[in-house]
Structures are given as C-alpha cells and as structure tokens.
C-alpha cells in the first residue's frame, strides 16, 4: 500500500497564480512520449495522404532545389566549392538548411496553429515543438539517404575524401542545429501570441538568413574582413561547416566559432523554454 500512497501523492497537481521562471518538467514530457510520436506520425500522414507521389515529395523537393542552386550559384555565379562535386555539395547544404529552417518555421506557429487543441485540453505544451523537431529530423534523414547514394557514387570515383574520424560528431551536429532552430522557433511562437506580425516576418527572415550562412557558397569563398566576421558570428555557420568538413572533407572548422554557436544555442533554448513556459499558462486568453 505504501507504493500506492506514493503514486497518489505524485499525481497531486498544484495550480497557482505564481509562476516559476524556469520549469522544464522533463518527467512529464517523458510520460507523454507516445503523444510526441503520434504527433510526429500525424504530420507525415496528413501531409502525404491523397497525394499522387506521396512521400516521394521528400526527395523531389530537395533534389530540384539543389539542381537549381547548382546551376545558378555554382555554374552561373561561380560560387561553387573547389575540389568537391558541386551537386553533392548543394544536396548536402540544402538538406542542412531546409532541416534548420523547418525547425524554425515549424515551431514559430506552435501556439497559434494549435490554439484549438491547447484551448480545450492540457498536455505538456513542449511536446509539440519536440515532435516538430523529430519530424524535421526524420525528413532530414530521408533526404540524406538520397544524398548518401550520390555520395557513394562519388566516393567510388574518388571524387570526394571525407574526414571519417569526424563522422562521430555528425549526430551531435544534427541535434545542435535542431535545438538551435527549435529555440529560435519557440521564442518566435511565444511572441506571436501577442504580435502576429512576427509570423510573417519570420518566414521572410529565414530566407534572408540563408544568404548569411554558407549554404549556397562555401566559407572558403569569402575573403577576410567584416563580411567574414559577420558570417562567422552566425551560429548556424559553424555546425554547417563542421558537417561538410566531415561528410565531404571540405570546409574549415574554427573552434571559437563552434564554441560561440554552442553557447548561443544553449542561450536560445533556455530563454526559449523560459518564455514558452510563461506564455503557455495564459496564452489562451490572448490568442
């Protein structure tokens, strides 16, 4: 019987008007892990039902974008990388960027897009951004399969020399990018409950952000000076460069850039969860 009393006590919920500044409550999120998974599954089911090509769209979209990037930025503008197959470079960069940007924009509307559900029932709100990030990771993984096919082809031809030892870092880099995107996304979503303008602004800003990140050009193309410093300060730069360094054997990895990026990511996530916690309690009254 002692267990039961303990269980009953753990189910005690106290609601008060006072709020703590930072509550993570990961235990509660973990109890709702099935919900996170179902949300993730739903995002795939709902997107691809009643489409002719179905999940093939996950391939088609990045393939076409990478081809266009390769022609416009690589061939016409001459921004492409040296010593690496151009198409592979753009497949890789484009995959990374669309992963990051979907983490930002997917989470930027967490509150407004889910207002109908949030307004009727309680569950840890953090499950929504986590499941958004999870589906972005899965999409990225599927795109990477296609990139891997291309990679194997070039590898057999000896056109690419990856740094195999750095591959161990790849999962961390993916998680890092995802967390950064989620952090920015939930900050924006918390603010959008009050200022709707931000929802419009963010999709536009993310587009511009891509040009401030070495996506359509490698970092090596940038000459020194203020521009290079600005791009190096961008927290997305270091993980993208590190990813390509490992995967393609191309790019420069600056330790100070990585440290800065990790610090900024942590700040974004902590601040994001703080403001998210604040908003989730009462956003139904203002949304």
């Amino acid at each position: 019987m002692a267990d039961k009393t303990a269980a009953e006590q753990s189910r005690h919920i106290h609601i008060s008007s006072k709020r703590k500044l930072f509550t993570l409550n990961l235990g509660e999120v973990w109890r709702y892990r099935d919900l996170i998974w179902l949300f993730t599954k739903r995002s795939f089911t709902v997107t691809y039902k009643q489409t002719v090509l179905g999940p093939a769209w996950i391939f088609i979209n990045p393939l076409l974008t990478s081809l266009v990037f390769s022609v416009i930025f690589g061939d016409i503008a001459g921004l492409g990388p040296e010593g690496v197959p151009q198409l592979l470079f753009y497949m890789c960069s484009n995959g990374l960027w669309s992963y990051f940007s979907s983490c930002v924009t997917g989470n930027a509307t967490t509150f407004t897009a889910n207002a109908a559900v949030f307004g009727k029932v309680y569950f840890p709100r953090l499950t929504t951004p986590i499941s958004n990030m999870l589906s972005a990771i899965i999409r990225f993984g599927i795109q990477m399969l296609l990139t891997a096919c291309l990679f194997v082809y070039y590898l057999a031809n000896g056109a690419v020399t990856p740094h195999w030892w750095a591959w161990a870092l790849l999962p961390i880099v993916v998680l890092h990018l995802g967390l950064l995107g989620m952090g920015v996304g939930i900050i924006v979503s918390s603010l959008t409950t009050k200022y709707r303008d931000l929802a419009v602004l963010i999709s536009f800003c993310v587009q511009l952000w891509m040009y401030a990140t070495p996506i359509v050009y490698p970092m090596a193309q940038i000459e020194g000076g203020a521009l290079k410093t600005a791009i190096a300060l961008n927290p997305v730069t270091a993980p993208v460069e590190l990813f390509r360094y490992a995967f393609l054997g191309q790019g420069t990895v600056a330790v100070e850039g990585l440290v800065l990026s990790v610090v900024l990511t942590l700040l974004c996530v902590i601040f994001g969860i703080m403001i998210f916690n604040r908003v989730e309690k009462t956003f139904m009254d203002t949304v």
Partner: protein
Amino acid sequence: MDNSIRKVAIKIEGVKKKYKLGQIGGGSLQKDLQSWWARFRGKEDPNSRLGEGERIKGQTFMALNGIDLTVYKGEALGIIGGNGAGKSTLLKLLSRVTAPTEGTIDLYGRVTSMLEVGTGFSGEMTGRENVYLNGAILGMTKAEIDSKMEQIIDFSEVRDFIDTPVKRYSSGMYVKLAFSVAAHLDSEIMIMDEVLAVGDMAFQKKCLDKMRDAARKEGRTVLYVSHNMNTIRNLCDRCIVMHKGKIVYDGDTEKAISLYMNQGNSGSGVCYDYTDIKRPGVASMRLELRNLRMVGRLNNTVSKGDTLELLIGCRCNSGGNKTGFRFEIRSDNGDMVGTVFSDKSLVFADGEECEIRVKLPTDNIAPGRYMAVALAYEYNSAGQQVYVDRVEPAMFFNVVNEKEGAMAWLPQYWGHVHFDDMTVEKTD
C-alpha cells in the same frame, strides 16, 4: 458522511480570473511601446480606457471573483448558472488550459477534461488512428489505449467504419467515437462541459449511465456543467449555482435547480438586466436589448391563460430597418417548447433609447417552469431572418393552472404545449 474522513479530490481557494476587455494586444507593437514608455515616465497610459460597473474595472473583467470550493472523492458535482456566470472559465482553470489570476487550486488525481469532444481529431486519419491520438492528448499511453481499444470501439457503435478516415463520418458517428475515448479514461477526476448533448437519445442515455457509474461505482469525481436540468438531476448529487463569477449556492441538486430557474437579477425574477450578458454569435448588435421587467407582478409566476406583460428596454445602435422580436421558450430540462413571434415589426432611429411593451399570451403553455431566450431580428436581402441581438437567458417564468378543478399536467407524457381544446359531439 463526515467530511473530515472523506478524501479531498479538488480544493479551490480564493480563485480569481481576470480578463482584459476589448481587443487584446491587437498585434500592435507600437501601442505597447507607447504604453510602456508612458508608464516608464510615470504618465497616464494613453491607450487605457475607463469602464464602469462592479465587475468591470478599467479594461478588465472578473470572470471569476473569489471562488472557494472543496469537492470530495466520488462526488458528482453539477455546475449551473446563466451565460457569463463563469462556469466555463472555472472548468478551463481546472483543466489547466489557462492559469488563475489569483488563488490556488489543488487536484488530487489524474484529470481528464472534456471541454469539447474530439479534441485533436484529424479528418485525414482513420477512426482508429484518431482514437490513439485523442487518447494520448487526453493523457493515456499507447499501451493503455491498446488494452481498451475493443471496449472503445464497442461503446462507440462505429466498428464498421473504424478504419475509414473520420472526415467521411457523419457528425453523429464522429462525436460517438470521440466521447467513447474520453469515457474510457482511467482518471480520478472527470471534467465535462455539456458534452453529453451529443448523439441520439439512446446514446445520450448510455453516456449518462456511464458517467453515473464512474461516480457511484468506481468512486471517481465528476464535475459537470450543463443547461439541461434533467441530466443534472440524473447525474449529480451535489450542485453549485454560479452567478457573476461567484458561487451563490452549494448543496442539494433540486434546491440549486429551483434557485437557478427562479434566478433573476432581483430576487423574485421580475426584473432582468442584460448589459453584462455575453452575446456569442451576435455579429452586429444593431438593436441592443438592455433590460426586461414584468409589469404588475410581484413574482414570475403566471396563471395559465393570463397575458404576461413585459417592458423591454432597448437602445438602437444602427437604425432604419424593420426589426421583429421573438421569444424562444424552453422547458427547465432544456427542451425547446416553441417560439412566439411579434405581430409586427418596429422601426428605430439611430441612437434611440426606448421601451417596448410586449403582451405574451400563455394560453397554450402547459404548467411548468420555463426559460425564454429573447431575440431581435431583421430580414436580410435574401429574405432570411438575421438576429441583431440575442439574450440567453432573457427571463424565467412559471406557469401554474389555478382554475378550479384543473387537472395536474404531466409534461413527461403530454409535453409542454397545451393546444386549444378540440370539440367533440355525438352525431345523430
């Protein structure tokens, strides 16, 4: 039972909930910065507006104004009150959809809230997939849902369609499935907002029985809000009446219902003030119904056959159109009894404030307790009636038959309408 040994399920202490009136935030960063700058310099906020009224201070409104309540384990508590009394706000706080402005709430046990059936249902997904998703949103794990899947499908009566996307469902099937999920949760506390008003009569009864069993046999705590007094009577063993954000009565269900049915702004129910009543669904209040009083009466009991004489105070916000009036009359268990229309339309001028005299005959209304919804309507270009104001509840009244030798009316068999007598005679 002695309260000291009963286990507490819900304890609410001094809870208040404040809402801002008017457009909130409005999405304008500029105004917010302006207000902030004014406050920073210690000046008056240029964007604040002063209102009046006891519940309305500045631009805020107290939806709940000091609630204290203790609910014990195994109790089925009914919550009744007019529109805008704060019932739904209280349920929202208990379901943790929004947080109180002041005060504390302690919940002992897992809480399931059914403020709506089928929260999170997605039309593209099949019935079965939606059961999983909805169950998980309500706090079940996948294993729990797996073990109850068969029971849920049986209860919902939609087994044949369980693997069809729910967008192909009829609305009845949809709510049946949704309710079945909620009804099979293993939670200690269940919070429901009129969700039983779904499906056909047989299904409603099934739901009600299920809820009653949950409270009486399984010892769960049920909180139930409804305007249907019959379901409250059937389900609840204790009832609170809310009025203007406060609990005005707590105790016996029958007493609570009779208090609510006789509740006007004055004790005897002959005067009503509508200025504070929310008007959901009224697009433009072109003619505002402001108050109502019964003329020449000390209470709201009418002798059958008498004419109920009313004065309705109105203000015209946008005039020039022909405006008609109607009362929709409901019985105390929420059944629609009938509607009475005004014999002619009236025309008002912009900004006009006046009183309308209404004479409502009661010959055909069977003895009983009634609630009326008042509507003012105009005709649109397609010739349809569009209402320009709607007040619910507009008034409560009792009809009694005081004629000598009058028979007792049995509404459960005879309904609420007493038609004129038919003539019978023997033919030669």
